[in-house]
Structure formats: structure tokens, C-alpha cells
């Protein structure tokens, strides 16, 4: 009996420790992180973690060389950055998981506009307003004219309800413009001069699309979804959505309304439904990823494509050339009903409240991204010796070994991409066309490496776009937006595929998530 009791006591104690460990932690609060903005001496951080998507050169494309090169440029060369590189397509799943517990939270994270507003409003991002105001970049006098538009959009509401800056973006958000293939245009009996530089009406634009459809007996537009996955959402089919707003926005009377329930959206959905029925828009768009949509454009299965401006204009052209197709693309002006293309709110580099030395991270990491010198060059073009170089050499790309390019000592030139040596590296994280600050001597060292196509298109987009307006995140919105957006997407797909009329779609939307929408609107209009 005594032995039994002893043994049971031992087992019981073990279980006690297990259960105690399990039960602990639900009220845990962290003490290590320091998010204060109080004035104190800024010290160089020893090490910190950075979570970023594939907009920074991937590890298969010379990422490790970039990390090493950046390390030599930051501070006294001893800052140890631990890079967290989740799969690009599952990046925000990984971010969500990382924010699930404070011990898995990265110190620095790159966030899209929606997630930025969400985590800022939930209190997980460090307020960098004061640090930014005192920063070298802000006071350098090198910021471009439109920098304020970008940075103002990053002023979002924090946990205390105050609008502050919780993230920094070193580049403009860019956006999508519509590219038309010259061959398709001519096959439909139109000339380049009919569209280039002209502001078409929707009817004129749609007539051209229908002419193309008949001439090619094929769909004309195959987009990456009928609706985009992030703000401004409507940017893959802007001519059809026109002024319609997918989400909540502030109306002329100063009150927030649900854009999806407005007449403009109903009309937009009707236009999309008609276009799908007419065979102008590919009904497979509902299944398309961006890669699928691009591949169809490259394979000449579509003739009009709304996609990213700037460097992507050059990539699309190059890919068409590689496939042996006519590569002339015309970026058309926004149609009359659309007014301007929409520039998305740029993804923001944020420091989490988990970081022990946020001031140091800001000063030695974020503020250096646009230093107008070597660090900015690294963020724009990659690692010296891996992605670009200035030494005298002969550069050849794979498959064109008979056409080497000679460079003199000191001449900046891009090197073949480590991942795809059939072409040269184009850029790293910051698109040189979109950088928010110029270089110290006023000259971008890699300016020659930027193709005319990318440069011209970048300027074209800048002249024909406006920055999207950020919607404040309230508790109610944060809790309900996933259900509301899911229902919106379902309705868009059902209407586009002809399962129901746009009016019925909006009715179904209101009947299913109307109460959630009302709750959000009430919180926004408080």
C-alpha cells in the first residue's frame, strides 16, 4: 500500500507539473520588449530578427550574399540580422502565426497596408513617429516630391486611437496599369494611335475589346482573380470597376459607407458579368493566380493585361520577346470613367513591440535604407559582386555567350541573375524607379541599368495615378472583415459567372453579412 501511494504520488507530481505548465501562460504579459519613444541614447543593436517576403532577393537568387554584404555596410559591421523568409505565397499566414505569441514575433516585419493597419491598431507595432521626425532620411532634403503622399498614408490609428506612424516605406506603392498588345489591337482593325495617349470612354474601350475577341476568337483579358487580394482590390480590372469601391470609404458627407453595397459596385458587377458572357474576360480568372494570368499573357492567350507598372512593363515585354512574340505593349491612359489608376499604399517596414532596441533598429537598419549611398544601392540593386559590380569585366548571359558586354573599371553594371542566368538582375527590394529618396550626389549609380521601357512606364504611371486612401481599422472591423470580404468575393464570382444578377448579388450580400457591415460602419462613424 505504501509503495502504491508513493508511486501514485510520483505520477501525480509529474502530472501536476505538466498541468501547471499547461495552465500557466494565458495571462502572460511580456516584459522584455521596449517600445518606448522616450528620449534615450540610441545604441547600435547587436542582433535582431527580420521577417520579409520575396520582394527582397531570395536565398536562391543570392540572398545570402546580400545579407553578408548588407552586414558589412550597417553600423560597425557587427550587427547580426536573423532573416526569416517564409514562402512568398504563404507570407501572411506565416506573419499571422508569428504574431500569435510574443516569443515568436519578429523584431522587424514587412507588412502590406491591411496588415499594417491591423497590427498597429492592435498595439503590436512600435510608434516610430518621433524617430522618423528626427531621422537622417527625413532631414536629408533628398526625399522626392510625392514622398509625403506615401508617408501620410502610413499614418494609422494605434491602440490609443491616435494616428501615428508605425511603419516606414522606402518606396512608392506602385500600382497597375493596363497593357494592350499591339498585335491584338491591329488584328482587331485598330491602330496604336487609337489608344495611345488618348483617354477612352468605357464604351470605346469595350468596343476595342470586343473587336479583339471576335478577331482572335479568344478571351481578351485573363486577370488574376475578378478581385484583388489587397487594397485597392479593384486594380486588376480597373476599367470595369471604375469608381466602385470594394471596401469601406469616406463619402462626400464625411461619413463612412460600404462601397460594396453602393450603386457603383452593382453597375461594375454588371459590366464584368457582360464581359464574361461576351467572352471578353476569361471566366477562368476566378481560378487564376497572378502567375497563371501572366503565363496566359505570355502564351498569347490574352491580349490585354492590367498589371504592375514600372519594372514589370519591361519584364512583360522581355518575356514576350523570349517566347518569340511581338513584344510591343501600349500602356493605355486610365479611361474617362476611371479618372486615374490607383497607387496602392506601400508595404511598410515595421518594428514590433517585441524588439528590445527599436530606436537602434530604426537608426541602424530602417533609416539607412535610403542613405543615398552604399546601403540604398544594396537595397535597390543587391550585393556587389553577386548582383552588380563596378569592376572591368565582360558580362554574358546564358544562351547569349557570343554577345558579351564589356565594362570598364568603375562602370556600374548588373550581373546575370544567380537564379536565372539567362537574364540580368533587375532590382532588389526597392524599385529604383519608385525609391522615395534620391542618391546623395543626385545620380543613381544604376540609372543606366534601368531600361527605358521601365523608366517611361514608371513615369507614365506616376502621372496617371493617385495614392489609395487608408481605411482606419476599428475593433469591429478587425473582427468582421474576413467574413465580409469572403462574402464580397463570393458575390463577385457568382455574378461574374452569371449565376445571379448584380442586384440579387448585392441583396444576398446584405442578407448574409448586413449586420456585420452595420456593426463596422457604426464603429467607423463613431
Amino acid at each position: 500500500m505504501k509503495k502504491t501511494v508513493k508511486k501514485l504520488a510520483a505520477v501525480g507530481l509529474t502530472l501536476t507539473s505538466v498541468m501547471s505548465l499547461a495552465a500557466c501562460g494565458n495571462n502572460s504579459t511580456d516584459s522584455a520588449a521596449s517600445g518606448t519613444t522616450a528620449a534615450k541614447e540610441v545604441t547600435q543593436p547587436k542582433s535582431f530578427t527580420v521577417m520579409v517576403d520575396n520582394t527582397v532577393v531570395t536565398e536562391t537568387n543570392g540572398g545570402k550574399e546580400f545579407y553578408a554584404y548588407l552586414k558589412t555596410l550597417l553600423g560597425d559591421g557587427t550587427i547580426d540580422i536573423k532573416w526569416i523568409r517564409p514562402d512568398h505565397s504563404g507570407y501572411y499566414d506565416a506573419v499571422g502565426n508569428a504574431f500569435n505569441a510574443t516569443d515568436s514575433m519578429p523584431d522587424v516585419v514587412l507588412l502590406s497596408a491591411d496588415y499594417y493597419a491591423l497590427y498597429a491598431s492592435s498595439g503590436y507595432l512600435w510608434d516610430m513617429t518621433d524617430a522618423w521626425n528626427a531621422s537622417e532620411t527625413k532631414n536629408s532634403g533628398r526625399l522626392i516630391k510625392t514622398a509625403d503622399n506615401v508617408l501620410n498614408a502610413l499614418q494609422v490609428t494605434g491602440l490609443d486611437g491616435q494616428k501615428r506612424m508605425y511603419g516606414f516605406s522606402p518606396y512608392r506603392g506602385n500600382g497597375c496599369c493596363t497593357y494592350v498588345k499591339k498585335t491584338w489591337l491591329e488584328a482587331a482593325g485598330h491602330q496604336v494611335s487609337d489608344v495611345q495617349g488618348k483617354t477612352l470612354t468605357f464604351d470605346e474601350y469595350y468596343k476595342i475589346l470586343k473587336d479583339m475577341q471576335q478577331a482572335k476568337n479568344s478571351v481578351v483579358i485573363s486577370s488574376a482573380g475578378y478581385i484583388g487580394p489587397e487594397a485597392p482590390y479593384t486594380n486588376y480590372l480597373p476599367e470595369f470597376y471604375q469608381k466602385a469601391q470594394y471596401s469601406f470609404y469616406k463619402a462626400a458627407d464625411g461619413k463612412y459607407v460600404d462601397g460594396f453595397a453602393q450603386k457603383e459596385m452593382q453597375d461594375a458587377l454588371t459590366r464584368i458579368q457582360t464581359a464574361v458572357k461576351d467572352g471578353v474576360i476569361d471566366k477562368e480568372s476566378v481560378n487564376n493566380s497572378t502567375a497563371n494570368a501572366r503565363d496566359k499573357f505570355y502564351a498569347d492567350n490574352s491580349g490585354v493585361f492590367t498589371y504592375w507598372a514600372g519594372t514589370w512593363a519591361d519584364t512583360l515585354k522581355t518575356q514576350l520577346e523570349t517566347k518569340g512574340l511581338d513584344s510591343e505593349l501600349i500602356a493605355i491612359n486610365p479611361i474617362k470613367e476611371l479618372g486615374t489608376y490607383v497607387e496602392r499604399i506601400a508595404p511598410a517596414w515595421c518594428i514590433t513591440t517585441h524588439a528590445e532596441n527599436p530606436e537602434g533598429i530604426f537608426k541602424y537598419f530602417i533609416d539607412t535604407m535610403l542613405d543615398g549611398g552604399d546601403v540604398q544601392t544594396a537595397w535597390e540593386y543587391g550585393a556587389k559582386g553577386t548582383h552588380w559590380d563596378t569592376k572591368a569585366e565582360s558580362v554574358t548571359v546564358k544562351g547569349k555567350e557570343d554577345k558579351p558586354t564589356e565594362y570598364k573599371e568603375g562602370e556600374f553594371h548588373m550581373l546575370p541573375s544567380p537564379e536565372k542566368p539567362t537574364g540580368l538582375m533587375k532590382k532588389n527590394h526597392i524599385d529604383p524607379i519608385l525609391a522615395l529618396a534620391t542618391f546623395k550626389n543626385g545620380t543613381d549609380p544604376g540609372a543606366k541599368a534601368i531600361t527605358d521601357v521601365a523608366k517611361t512606364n514608371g513615369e507614365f504611371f506616376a502621372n496617371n495615378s493617385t495614392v489609395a486612401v487608408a481605411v482606419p481599422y476599428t475593433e469591429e472591423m478587425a473582427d468582421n472583415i474576413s467574413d465580409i470580404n469572403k462574402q464580397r468575393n463570393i458575390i463577385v464570382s457568382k455574378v461574374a459567372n452569371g449565376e445571379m444578377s448584380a442586384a440579387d448579388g448585392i441583396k444576398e450580400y446584405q442578407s448574409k453579412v448586413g449586420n456585420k457591415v452595420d456593426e463596422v460602419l457604426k464603429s467607423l462613424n463613431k
Partner: protein
Amino acid sequence: MQCKSCNTELPKHAKVCPKCGAKVSDKGPQNLKVIAIAGAVIAFIGGLLPFVQNTGDVEKAYSFMNIQMPVFWYLYMIALVATILLCVAKKEKLSIITTAIAGVIFAVAFFVSPFAEYAGRQQGKGGTVINKYNNVMLSDLLSNGENGIGMGTFVVIIGLIVAIIGVFFDLLKYFKKEINVDAKYMTNSINKSVWSMVYYYRWFYVMFLPALIFVLLFNYWPMLGLRYAFTSYKITNPYYIGITHFHEMATADIYFWTAFKNTLYLSIIKLILNTGAAVIISLLLHEISNIIFKKTVQTIIYLPHFMSWVVTASLFRLILAPSSSGMVNTFLAEVLGMFGGNPSNGIFFLGDPRYWVGSYFVINVWKDTGWGTILFLATLSGISPELYEAAEIDGANRFNKMRYITLPALTNTIITVFILNLAKVMNLFESVFVLMNDAVYDVSNVLQTFVYYKTFGGGRPDYGYTTAVGLFRSVVSGVLVIICNYASKKVRGRGIV
């Protein structure tokens, strides 16, 4: 009768073993007191449910999980775990004491310790986000007219009473048949106590230890996270909200019941089709006498099983595309002259809810049927050829041999496979996830994809809610396992768990 300690044959009416001196008990082996264990489990679950519940706001609930002194909860759980262990060790009388201790702890916690009421979030020391709480006493809660006694209190009391009373009832004896065999003819393991058996086989237990630790660490430890089903867990800092999630799931969620219905429908039909197809193909393969041809066919039909679902989905998107690149629509349009000869006007198999479900089943049958035939073919290869020879002598043709020999021989395997797979029907995710899209969401959304979109679909995920859905799914799966086990006992004479 044998000594439990050394297995020596004992003289009649012996009080101690003449060889080892161990005491001889008159009592035979006792049955497990399952009612007492069930009571402890009920009381354990009661500890998660609200003791006090706001009548207007279901989120305002008070229990062990938001008690200001959580040590009460830990002690309560320890006492109940001790109750269960004592019952398992057949020391039921002692378990009454631990159950009573659990009752006392509950009473003290309920009446004396304040509850921590959630009062929002704030930026804490160092900028981190922390929860704010107000401490409220039971008397204050019950006197303001907004709260009432919650179901947790009743469940705990009922559980504790059952745990104590259950000690005096031997439920299992009604289900046991008397075998009327003298104990000396029974195996040693039946005659020995649990502890002496453990000691006797101690080195086997030592060898088993790594596997046990692995299972505890990776299978049972994560189960402790189920407590989050009773919390609001938005990004970090969970706090107790009682049964809010279950209430919302049942009454307010616009996607939940559709997802539940789709899960059952897609899984069960898929199971029937896959099993049926596997049986038919196995029977046909069994009839093939050319070994080379048979093996080649087998290899070909096994191959799709090794393709990932992502590749399979991409492949079928291409095959079923409503365009000139879609093989099926091109065949229908150009060979059969349908859709005005234009495949772009064809059927959108994976984007039209009318065709998606059928397409999903076809893709599943294509992918998994081959693999499913392995078990059936193994069974078929074990059928004695003499049976077929005898049937031939009796004049049976090929069809009759299949009907009267092959199929009956397969029946047991078919039932086993069917029952084993039935228990897994709630685990549907990958195959649906890669084939679904917004246009077919109403017919394709299943519980696992529902949880995925709730968590990663934008906005602020509530891990508490998705854990509650997971818990619901687990309970349904558990019920299905029990049903399957019962069905298996009825059909095959023995259970599967």
C-alpha cells in the same frame, strides 16, 4: 489458484503464499469503475464552463479560467486527475477522498476567490500589449441582477457527485460474460496485479518509453491548447469568454453549418465512391491472368496516389479548362460539336457549383482508387485456389465464381476499410483547398478550409474561435469512431479500437 506475486500454486484457503510470503486476497480481479471516471471527466469539463454567466452578454463569463488565483484551478485539476488514476489503479475508495478534495477546492474558489473580469487592452511596460482586468467577487456578480449561476457550476456538482457515487457501482460487470474457468488455468497476466506486471516486464516498458514520450509530447501535449476554445484569443493575450464561441458557431456564423454539411457530404460520398471503385478494379485485376499486363496496370493506377494534390489540381485545371487548352471541353466542342464548336463556351467544371462536386469526386477516384486496391488485392491473393477449382467442377462460370467466392471473401476487408476511413471523414482539407475557389465556395467550403480562411483570410483572427471549431470537429470525429467501433463489433465480432 496462483500467487499474484510469484505465480506459485496456492493451497486452498491460504492467507499468505508459502513461497514468497505475499498476502493472498480472496477477491478476484475487480472491474474498472467507469462511472466514477466519467464523473471525474464531467467535473473536469465543468471546470472549463462558466460558473457565473451574464444573462445579456454571453462573453461575460466567470470560471476557473479567469479566477484571480489560478492555483485553485490547478489544484482542482490535480485532484481530479488523482481521482482518475486511483480508479485506474483499482483504489476506488481512495478516489472518494480526492474527489471530495476537488469539491472543497471548487467551493472555496467559487465563494472566496475574486474573478478577473476582462476590461480591454492597453500598452504595458515597454510598449507590449497587455490585458486589463477588474477583480469582482461572487457576491457582487450575483447581486447586480445581470448575472446568474452558469452551467459550469451545475456540471461540476453533477460530475463530483457521479464521481463519488460511481465508486459503488460496477457497470462493466453487466457487460462481461462469466467464463467459469479456474484462475489457475488463466494466463499469468490476468492473475497478476498491474504493478507486478509492469515490474515483470520493466525492460519492455523502458524500451517503450521513447515512443510514449513522443506520443505524449506531440499528440497529447497540444491537446492542452483546447482550453483556448473558451477564450477570446486575438493575436495574443487570450482571456476567458465561456461558451461564446460555441454559441456563435451554432447561431450566428453564416459559413459554419454549410461547412459542416459539406464536410459530411463530400467525405462520405467520396468514401463510398473510392471504396466501391477500388473493389471493382480489384475484382477486375484479379481476373487478369497475364501477370505482366496485370502488374503494369497496377503500377499505372497506383501512380496518381504519389502526386501531390497541388500538382493534381493544376493538372485537372488544365484538363477541365473551359478553353482550347482544356482537353475535355475541346473534345466535347470539336469532336462532338457541342457549345457551337467553341470550347471557350464549354462547361466550367471547376468554377460552376453544379459541376464542381462531381468533378471533385472524379478527381478523387482517379487519384486514390489505385492505392485503395492494394488491400483488396492482398485479400484476393489469399483465397485458396481449391475453392475456384471446386466451383469449376461444380460448373460455376467466371461470374458465379466472383459472386460466390471472391466477393464473400472480400466482404470483411471492405467493411474494415470502410469503417476505418469513416472515422477520418472530418479530416478533409488538402484536396478541397487546392480545387476550390470563390465561385464554388458554397458547395466546397469544408470545416478545415473554414478554419483556414477564418485564421488567414485577413482581419484579426480569433484563434479561440477556430480552436472551438476544431474541438467540435474532434468531438464529431470521436463520436464517429465510437459508432464505427460499435458497427465493427456487430459486423465482425470485434472492435477496431
